[in-house]
């Protein structure tokens, strides 16, 4: 075991000391933070675009224009100011100009006249048509060159609210109280926790956390798995194995490499988990004061994250070590590693199914498959609280699979690392398993 320790130490130190490790450790959480905070941040204080809209007013109700303008021109007064529309375009400022058009004139003629021809400088100009019967049942129209703009939703809300307000006024409601009647109602969302008590949260926050965790787990397992494979190939290609193998058993070499690189990953994830934890504790107020929400990631989730990283890493790294032992060069590895990489990527393609229905039978079964468990069970833990037996069962299945794959990989490894040149066939690999 002392030899395994020597190898672990080398694998660990050689990698942790590199600049790439330091950069990766710092950059990735920044990306994660950006992923969570940036959309909200941008919505609040990001680009304050300006959109000029000419209102072609045929309604004959000047107060309607005033009501729309009041709502659209000051973003703060809009009901969606907290970014519930996805945070996009919420900061766009509208500048409305009223142009009264007689009811018998077709406003489209006007638009055609202004938009055709050489007047390119006004190509960004857009139009809002308030037809004569707009306060009854005629729909207002929005004409613009660019309709794939999220801010249109904000405009729609402003127009809708203004028209409703005018209708209520016309019906004789007290003008001073209309604002009160029309105040949007928020649906407050609560998540029932494991202990039965509910905690305020929301689908958006859950989604963000789940997705971030899922993504990081996937990246880490893939990344460190490939690290292992490349390490094996390096030793094989440079014939260092030939020197090593008279000192240690191949199985010791493999285990030392797995654990050493696994520890590097764990160090990185540990740093991330710790900084996330600290941020949740102390950073939340800081970000809140900047107008952005820092999601509160429960400690238990971070613990599960570490656990599933360890399990996922050992499962996949063992397979990657096997791939490394089979091939003779990195180019060779491209093809052979494909099945393994596919196994890692697959849950990333079906996670939507599980997220939408985390408690369905298919979700439960999928999250039990050892190759999917690290990501999919982690996802289920983040979104709902699956029964403890399911979590434990998935871990037990994984541990059993890991033991099995270590056994197979060790047998392939000890033969493979001394074989150069032609890639072995499946039948040959089968025979390697039986060598003494």
């Amino acid at each position, binding site marked *: 075991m002392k030899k395994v320790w020597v190898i672990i130490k080398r694998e660990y130190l050689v990698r942790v000391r590199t600049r790439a490790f330091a950069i990766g450790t710092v950059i990735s959480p920044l990306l994660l933070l950006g992923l969570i905070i940036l959309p909200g941040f941008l919505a609040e204080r990001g680009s304050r675009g300006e959109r000029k809209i000419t209102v072609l007013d045929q309604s004959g109700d000047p107060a309607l224009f005033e009501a729309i303008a009041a709502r659209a021109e000051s973003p703060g007064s809009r009901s969606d100011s907290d970014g519930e529309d996805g945070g996009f375009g919420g900061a766009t400022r509208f500048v409305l100009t009223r142009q009264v058009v007689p009811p018998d004139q077709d406003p489209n003629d006007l638009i055609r006249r202004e938009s055709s021809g050489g007047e390119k400088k006004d190509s960004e100009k857009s139009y809002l048509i308030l037809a004569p019967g707009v306060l009854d049942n005629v729909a207002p129209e929005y004409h613009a060159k660019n309709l794939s703009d999220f801010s249109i939703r904000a405009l729609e809300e402003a127009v809708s609210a203004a028209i409703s307000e005018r209708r209520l006024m016309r019906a004789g409601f007290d003008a001073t109280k209309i604002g009160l009647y029309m105040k949007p109602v928020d649906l407050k969302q609560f998540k029932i926790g494991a202990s039965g008590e509910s905690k305020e949260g929301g689908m958006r926050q859950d989604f963000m956390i789940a997705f971030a965790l899922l993504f990081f787990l996937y990246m880490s397992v893939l990344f460190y798995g490939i690290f292992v494979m490349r390490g094996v190939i390096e030793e094989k290609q440079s014939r*260092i194995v030939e020197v090593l193998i008279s000192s240690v058993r191949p199985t010791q070499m493999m285990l030392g490499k797995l654990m050493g690189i696994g520890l590097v990953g764990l160090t990185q994830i540990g740093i991330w988990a710790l900084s996330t934890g600290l941020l949740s504790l102390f950073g939340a107020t800081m970000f809140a004061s900047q107008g952005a929400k820092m999601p509160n990631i429960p400690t238990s989730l971070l613990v599960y994250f570490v656990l599933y990283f360890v399990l996922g890493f050992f499962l996949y790294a063992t397979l990657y070590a096997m791939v490394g032992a089979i091939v003779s060069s990195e180019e060779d590895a491209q093809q052979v590693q494909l099945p393994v990489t596919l196994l890692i990527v697959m849950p990333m393609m079906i996670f939507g199914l599980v997220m939408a229905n985390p408690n369905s039978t298919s979700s439960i079964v999928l999250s039990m498959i050892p190759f999917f468990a690290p990501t999919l069970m982690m996802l289920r833990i983040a979104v709902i609280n699956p029964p403890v037996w399911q979590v434990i069962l998935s871990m037990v299945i994984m541990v059993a699979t890991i033991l099995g794959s270590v056994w197979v990989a060790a047998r392939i490894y000890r033969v493979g690392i001394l074989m150069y040149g032609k890639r072995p066939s499946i039948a040959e690999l089968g025979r390697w398993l039986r060598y003494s």
Partner: protein
Amino acid sequence: MNVVELKHVTKRFDQFVAVKDLSFEVRQGTIFGLLGPNGAGKTTSIRMIVNIFAPDQGDVLVMGQHVSPDLQPHIGYLPEERGLYKKMKISDQLVFFANLKGLNSTEASKRVDEWLTLLELSDWKNKKPTDLSKGMQQKVQFIASVIHDPDVMILDEPFSGLDPVSVNLLKNVILDLKTRGKTIIFSTHQMEQVEQMCDDICLINHGTQVLSGGLKAVKRRYGKNTVILDYEGPDSFLGDDLVKHHNRFPNYSEILLNDGADAQEVLKRALAAGARVNRFELVEPSLNEIFIETVTGSKRVAQTAEVTG
């Protein structure tokens, strides 16, 4: 005392028999030449001695014990194909290899310094292998295989890629290890080096032993059947009835005589043909000649055996 002993060892890979009923002994404090053409089974034999492979049949004994991981610290192995970690400092790698053999880091770095000084590599201690020439890397690899002061050293082509000065340096180091009682198994295709260094040899071909014993005894067995002739003039005087094999070198000829041929006859014919003879010497055949003779001979035997069998 025999430090390494193979007794009727057989090793198969699927249908392929790499080593077949091979036996040899290596005496303590000697340099033993393990020879053979490419693919003869040398590497497989060595890998069984260093406990990488287990024999299918027979026994492999090192220091009187069956090979096991416990013996690994007593064996040093310089494989023919060898490498270093590209991104690791020379001293760090050597300490790592020493640690794997059970040395603690303090002792290891002390020895690393000593060896680097001995092989004139001190200046490269904190460099990475990519900064070193191939020859320097070879020397570093040699250190890696002897750093733990093993009793048995297996050196496979230790001099390949080295300049004559470094070869000399390393040769002296190896001979010095021998005088300190270390046992060395030396595998190479350079027969001159074997003649210079080895006490005993074992020549294997197709996984079986074809020749073995003390170097001098082996050569004596062939008798003085080789003429070294330094002459000026044409070589047409050499008749087929006398010569089995003729190696022409720029400055002299090495002529292996047919069985029963008289060496004096060569001299007579040379003089009769009008050649100027500067040197005439009757010697034992060179190991190179014995190697070629034995290997091609055994191939012929093997082929006949296949036909008749």
